[in-house]
């Protein structure tokens, strides 16, 4: 009776845990997908590296400059001086031309007429007046409009000759992704993604904590019932199932997310601000299974080998060990004393690398984070006109938490197994690494 009750209550807990684990897995997959889409849309290829983008921005700046162009008094003076110089030069040249010794009668007459009627100095005196006329004429609203129109059309012409292929790619990409999220523009997309992500963020942590709560409840039950040897087998089998669920969600949920971006790149061009925001340099988010999958999918044999080894040591052996423990406790005496089962249950610890994986992931995260941080801080610049801000959003994800929980739980189970191991057996004094202080 007590047995059934125990199974029922633990079964409920187990269902809860599995449900949370499953949800956690789907949600974290969804998060990964959303973030991937986001990083694709905001990829640096479509931003700072896109000539099309630069063209748009620069032509906006130049257009603005052209349209709001008006000469200051100083510029007018300078231009007038220049025009005056030109005109004076022209006059000198003309006069010299006419004053050249002429041979024909007509030429001689012209020279005479010119010299008697035109005073060169007087002409030079007139020059400033004319140049002023030219400048005022050019600066009249109608002329200005006309000149601007010419400049603008020339600009357009130049723009047409400057392009790359990002525009097409970006359009196709954004169209597809916007359709996926049912948004129509970038702002909506950003908003929708931000909402999604914050909802998912809280949810994932809630589910993760709920899972841990279930496991903890199981352990508390164990503590309460530790005197009732009769129930221990059931309890142990159920705990193994708990561990399997933990392991399954631990390896399928995202563990590390790496996200490096240039938040803003700002600089001044002709007094106008040119800004690029949210440029994703690098994004990657993977679960343990995802890592193994990526390695196995490579064409190179060495990557496949590494993937297979990780698969063997981090997934297969832990599962086999759990099975071994289960068979040892549950099975008949003959089964329990089977050499293979005993080996799996007690001595395979050194081949089971889930705990090594925990340390390895932590090391990778810290190392990667450190390298990224120092690389990005090299990009951080604030030199007056040019200003860049970078951001490193790398983080450990709930999957890591779950995986750590699995490893700890597995250690506890090994410890318990050694205590409840059938008394008629020779006590297996296994030096399982798990209870050796490291």
């Amino acid at each position, binding site marked *: 009776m007590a047995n059934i009750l125990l199974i029922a209550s633990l079964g409920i807990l187990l269902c809860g845990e599995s449900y949370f684990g499953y949800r956690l897995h789907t949600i974290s997959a969804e998060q990964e997908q959303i973030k991937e889409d986001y990083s694709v849309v905001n990829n640096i290829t479509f931003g700072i590296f896109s000539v099309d983008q630069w063209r748009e921005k620069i032509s906006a700046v130049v257009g603005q400059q052209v349209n709001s162009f008006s000469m200051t008094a100083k510029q007018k003076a300078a231009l007038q001086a220049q025009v005056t110089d030109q005109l004076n030069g022209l006059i000198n040249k003309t006069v010299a031309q006419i004053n050249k010794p002429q041979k024909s009668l007509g030429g001689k007459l012209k020279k005479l007429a010119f010299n008697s009627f035109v005073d060169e100095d007087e002409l030079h005196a007139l020059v400033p007046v004319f140049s002023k006329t030219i400048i005022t004429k050019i600066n009249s609203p109608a002329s200005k409009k006309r000149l601007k129109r010419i400049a603008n*059309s*020339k600009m357009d012409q130049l723009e047409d*000759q400057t392009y790359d292929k990002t525009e097409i790619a970006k359009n196709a990409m954004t169209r597809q992704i916007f359709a996926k999220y049912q948004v129509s523009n970038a702002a909506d997309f950003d908003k929708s993604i931000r909402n999604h992500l914050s909802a998912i963020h809280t949810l994932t942590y809630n589910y993760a904590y709920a899972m841990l709560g279930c496991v903890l409840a199981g352990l508390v039950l164990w503590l309460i019932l530790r005197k009732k040897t009769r129930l221990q087998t059931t309890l142990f089998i159920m705990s193994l199932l708990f561990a399997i669920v933990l392991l399954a969600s631990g390896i399928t949920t995202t563990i590390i997310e790496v996200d490096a971006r240039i938040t803003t790149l700002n600089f001044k061009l002709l007094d106008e601000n040119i800004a690029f925001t949210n440029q994703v340099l690098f994004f990657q988010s*993977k679960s343990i299974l995802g*890592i193994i999958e990526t390695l196995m999918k490579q064409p190179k044999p060495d990557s496949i080998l*590494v993937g297979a080894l990780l698969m063997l040591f981090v997934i297969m052996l832990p599962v086999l060990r759990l099975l071994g423990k289960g068979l040892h406790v549950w099975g008949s005496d003959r089964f329990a004393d089977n050499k293979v089962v005993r080996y799996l249950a007690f001595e395979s610890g050194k081949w089971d690398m889930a705990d*090594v994986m925990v340390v390895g992931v932590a090391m*990778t995260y810290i190392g990667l984070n450190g390298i990224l941080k120092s690389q990005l801080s090299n990009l951080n610049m604030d030199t007056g006109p040019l200003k860049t801000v970078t951001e490193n959003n790398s983080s450990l994800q709930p999957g890591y938490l779950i995986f750590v929980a699995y490893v700890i739980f597995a250690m506890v189970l090994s410890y318990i197994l050694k205590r409840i191991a059938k008394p008629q057996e020779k006590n297996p004094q296994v030096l399982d690494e798990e209870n*050796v202080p490291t």
Partner: protein
Amino acid sequence: MLSSNQEDIKKDYSNINNITYGLFSVGQWHDKVAAIINHQVRNFTMTKSQKKELQIEVEQVIIALINKAEALVNKPKKTVDGKIKKFVINTFVDTDKIKAQAPAFAKTIIAQVDNAANKKKMSKMAMGKFTEMERTGTIDSTLTAIEVTTKGMYKKYHVASTAELNQKFNTSLADIRKSTYGYCFGMLGCIVVVLSLWWVFRKRTELHTTLFVMSLLFAFILLAVGLTASMIEVDARIKSLDFMLLGEHVVFKDQVLFFQSKSIMDVVLVLIGQSAVDSILVGVLILVFSVLFPIMKLSSTGIHLLGNRKLAENRFIKYFAFQSGKWSMADVIVIAILMTYIGLNGLLESQLKSLHINSNFLTIITTNNTALQPGYIIFISFVLYGLTLSTILKFITPHDSH
């Protein structure tokens, strides 16, 4: 040895193909800018509407000038001379006629601007300005610096041009690659032979101790090679930079941003060289797992087998002899994860592919050529070999292994 040679060559290769010599090199841009100036200035054309507008503008200016002149002439003159001039001009010069000619003048002026000879002159001037800019101090100094390194490189490899150099790099890298893999498989073959010897002699207990000590020596060699040979090759490059600039096709291919081979010791050094405490910690941890632990492990296995009973049953020795092996796997895992995160980052490309967009013409940073190196395989085989040895030890030890 070969592996460090390979590293050298790769460093040179990346130097030569470095972005500073391509994308950021003035020399490379020189031809392109020349072509653009040529294209834009010499072939400077105005569309019909632009010409028309400009012509109207010039006309207006000319008319304004004539008006001004007329006004000046018609000003009441006081001197006799002035009065005569006014009279003469008014009789001989018909301002309306001149005004009527304004469009023709304007046309001539614009035609002058459009003139091919003038354009040639202008493009020459623009090019002159550009070369002048090229010769200015700072750019000049980087140019000479680049030239010096390139010259040095050419001399070192006995070649005359960059293309030749690249070819030489490629062939020698392929050679080295082949021979490193050859040696690598040779080593692995030795290990397999040793393990099969164990199988052959599994019944002859008297030989076990000798065999085991020999196996330990093999392990030491594996470890030493595994630690110092390059493990991972990180290669980040801009695959192509391809765009039209003012009507001129600008293409840069395979701009190397970063190209390095790292052995595990190099990784440790990089991490320890960081300023952040946590990175240093990780560096130290890797060092512990990859150097300290294995050495301790191998020595304690030896001690366990050869030493007296008391020493052999020491908890510490036993732990290292039997259980510590798997922690070296931590390094393997770290490199594997790094590999998947840094090296196999084809996210954008795969997305583009799914949309049937050719990504060859987009500016994408790729790290696709990042690869694992023989050192990694050797290190893994060391770890596995070590684990196997400790299992063997458990069977042959005269002492209690638990």
